């Protein structure tokens, strides 16, 4: 192995997400990234955290069109990732502190990574 | 401390004269490894197409029937992958950089390789291990 690093991944349900993230925040973790992967008809959203080089991952699996609550209330800087999630994957994220309304990354075709190519414009931040 | 920290450098520059490389009066600096541009020896190319397949930006195109080897210089990123991958050593990486052009044209080479009597195909298969 090139690198010796423990990486733990914990699956988390949508309704538990905010609580879990709060727990990590309280535990002194920093938000490393939020990233999505298309796993065929659904999205896998990875919330990665780090504390003293301990890499921890919360894994959320959501279907298309499912609204995901924003964690930007806990980690202020999360808005970049969440806007990106919306703009590239079309996942509707609700309650982002700085909402670019789909203009964070403007693409020629909308939601290029979306499984449905529908996107979540209509259900965002009602 | 001080307001004129840069003085030393300024004086040194004034005394030492400019460091400018007088390009184009002096040719560009190159070194043996410099990746300038790819050339083909049409006499040794066996049209295997490996270079074309490896090329990450599809700059190379081969037409086996017409014996044509084409390279779009405006796509080529001079990574040298084709050179490394060529089993026959037909491709070489030259150090010279290409001059600018006013028109975008694709460079064509006619392959002049003539098949010898005894074809050796083994080594090619070996190096192209990932073909699947």
């Amino acid at each position: 192995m090139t690198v010796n690093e423990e990486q733990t991944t914990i699956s988390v349900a949508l309704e538990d997400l905010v609580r879990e993230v709060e727990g990590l925040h309280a535990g002194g973790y920093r938000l490393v990234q939020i990233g999505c992967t298309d796993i065929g008809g659904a999205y896998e959203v990875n919330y990665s955290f780090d504390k003293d080089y301990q890499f921890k991952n919360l894994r959320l699996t959501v279907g298309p069109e499912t609204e995901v609550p924003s964690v930007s209330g806990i980690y202020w800087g999360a808005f970049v990732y969440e806007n990106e999630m919306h703009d590239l994957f079309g996942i509707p994220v609700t309650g982002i502190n700085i909402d670019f309304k789909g203009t964070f990354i403007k693409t020629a075709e909308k939601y290029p990574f979306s499984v449905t190519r529908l996107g979540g414009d209509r259900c965002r931040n009602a | 401390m001080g307001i004129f920290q840069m003085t030393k450098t300024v004086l040194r520059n004034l005394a030492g004269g400019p460091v400018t490389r007088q390009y184009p009066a002096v040719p560009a600096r190159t070194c043996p490894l410099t990746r300038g541009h790819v050339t083909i020896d049409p006499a040794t190319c066996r049209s295997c197409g490996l270079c074309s397949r490896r090329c990450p930006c599809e700059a190379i195109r081969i037409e086996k029937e017409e014996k044509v080897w084409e390279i779009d210089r405006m796509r080529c990123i001079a990574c040298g992958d084709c050179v490394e991958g060529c089993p026959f050593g037909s491709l070489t990486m030259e150090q010279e950089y290409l001059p600018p052009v006013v028109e975008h044209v694709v460079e064509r080479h006619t392959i002049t390789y003539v098949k010898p009597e005894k074809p050796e195909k083994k080594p090619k298969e070996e190096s192209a291990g990932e073909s699947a």
Partner: protein
Amino acid sequence: MQTLLFLILFPILVACLLLFVKRTTLRYAVVALSALVIGGASIYLLMQYALEGAVYFAAPSEAASLAMVAIEMGLALFIVYMGAKFKNYLAIVLAVVQAALVVYLETTFSGNLHAVNNLFIDQFSIIMALIIGIIGSLIAVYAVRYMETYHRHHPEVRDRQTMFFFVTFAFLAAMFGLVFSNNLMWVFFFWEITTITSFLLIGYSETEEATKNAFLALVMNLLGGVAFVVALIFLAATEPVSGGIDLARVLASGDAAIILIPAALIGFAGITKAALMPFSSWLLGAMVAPTPVSALLHSSTMVKAGVYILVRFSPVFAGTFTGFSIGLVGGVTFVVASAIAISQSNAKLVLAYSTIANLGLIAACAGVGNYMLVWAAILLIVFHAVAKSLLFLGTGAIEHRVGSRDIEDMEGLIVRMPKMAVMMFIGIAGMFLAPFGMLISKWAAIEAFVQVPFGLVFIAILAYGSAVTVFFWAKWMGKLVAVTRETERVEKGFFEEPWAPLYIITGLVIATVLLFPVISSTLIEPYVLAIYGVTARLAQANVGIMLLMIALLLILPVSFLLFRRSAKHLPAYMGGRPATPDLHFAGSLGLTREVQTRNYYLTEYFGEAKLFLPGAVVCTILILASWVLAGVAL
């Protein structure tokens, strides 16, 4: 003398007449006609006495003086009534004190209250009369239509236009009286009249703010009035040496030390009237009044009474520390008010601060009082009156048209109201640019201050003061000339007639610049020469150069014709963002934003909150110092 009396009495007649005129058109006719008469009379005055030097007239004294005292008492009662009505007890106290002092003066020194000549005229008075007669009456003409529109825009304000025009013309009469009087008692009487008129006109709209500001102005001016009476008492008491209440004799008095104290007190009165620091707040508050009032009372004429008296007394101040500190009050006011003007975006407040600043500068010149400075001071009075009235009237016209007196809302005026913009441009240029008037005076002042001991202080004040002046005027000008796109023209269709006064005053601004060598040589220089025995004048070559500059400025706009043809128009640079002509762009967060170009106000550094208090404190100290120094000199 008939002309003088006519100029004092005719406006009163008109004023009374206007009390009974209710229709705007008729009022317009009356006002325009009397303006013509008053203006004509003041020009006739010029032709009559310009070459004469000082001429004194023994006008009827007894009856007039008695009437004046009676009116003064009446006014005091009026103030007491108003003070009681609006619960402003300070005003009552001051009015009572003043009345008591007048009574004391009348009863104790009645024998000493006779001037040899009650009226007089000299070149300085002519200048003042021209300002009052021409500019004042033009403003009155402008006011007729303005007030009509004003009431249309402010239906909540009670229509008291008859009172308004009565007071306006009474004021003109008082101003004429003030500059023609050789009897200081008379001067004081007219002085008080202007105070009252100002009080009435500031409070015109009867809002809470207007009333408050009116009383502020009243209190501060009464304060000066009290000082004036004290000075009169002092003069009367020392009549054999000081010359009593005869202005000419006072100024010619042999014992400079004696008259220094009354001079300092009258100087103080001048400071309050000219709204120098720390009394500048009343003038700022006065900006709630309708714009013609601001133009007439609070920039071109009434406040000039304050500096008029200072300039009159400047031979007394010359070379004394008292004068120096009064001059410093002006100097500090100049620099501080100019600096605060940077932080203002309300056009009228900018004009008010600039007025205060310029009055300060005039006071500085008068206080130091050497012959060149007096020359410069009178020149400043002339140029300031012309340019500032234009600016005020222009602001009023713009406000009615654009709906705002904020400088930022005047953006692109050159597109929306081109004629108005050009007039404003000329007015502003008159305030600070090179070949125009104010700058000539500043320049002369610098040359003069170099030769005065400790003049360096004033040079520093001028150097910094004119620097900040350039800043706030130029940025205003910049707003006017910004060529905004896709804005509609709003010049036409509004009231037609008031343009006439604006055109005339614009013409006057240019005329004074072109003719200032003539004004200087026929009016100012003889006056200075008569007082000091020497006079200042600009070098012939420099005059030529300035005329050349003016000529260039008049000719160069022709070059517009050259450019109109060949140029290709492109939108403004917006960082590569596709720009619409009205400067909208797609901003972050999916919003469409519009480029906003706003002037800098540097409130953090030049704000009122930051500068007013220190300026006021310094000026208060300097005023107190001027009294102490006058006392010491005695």
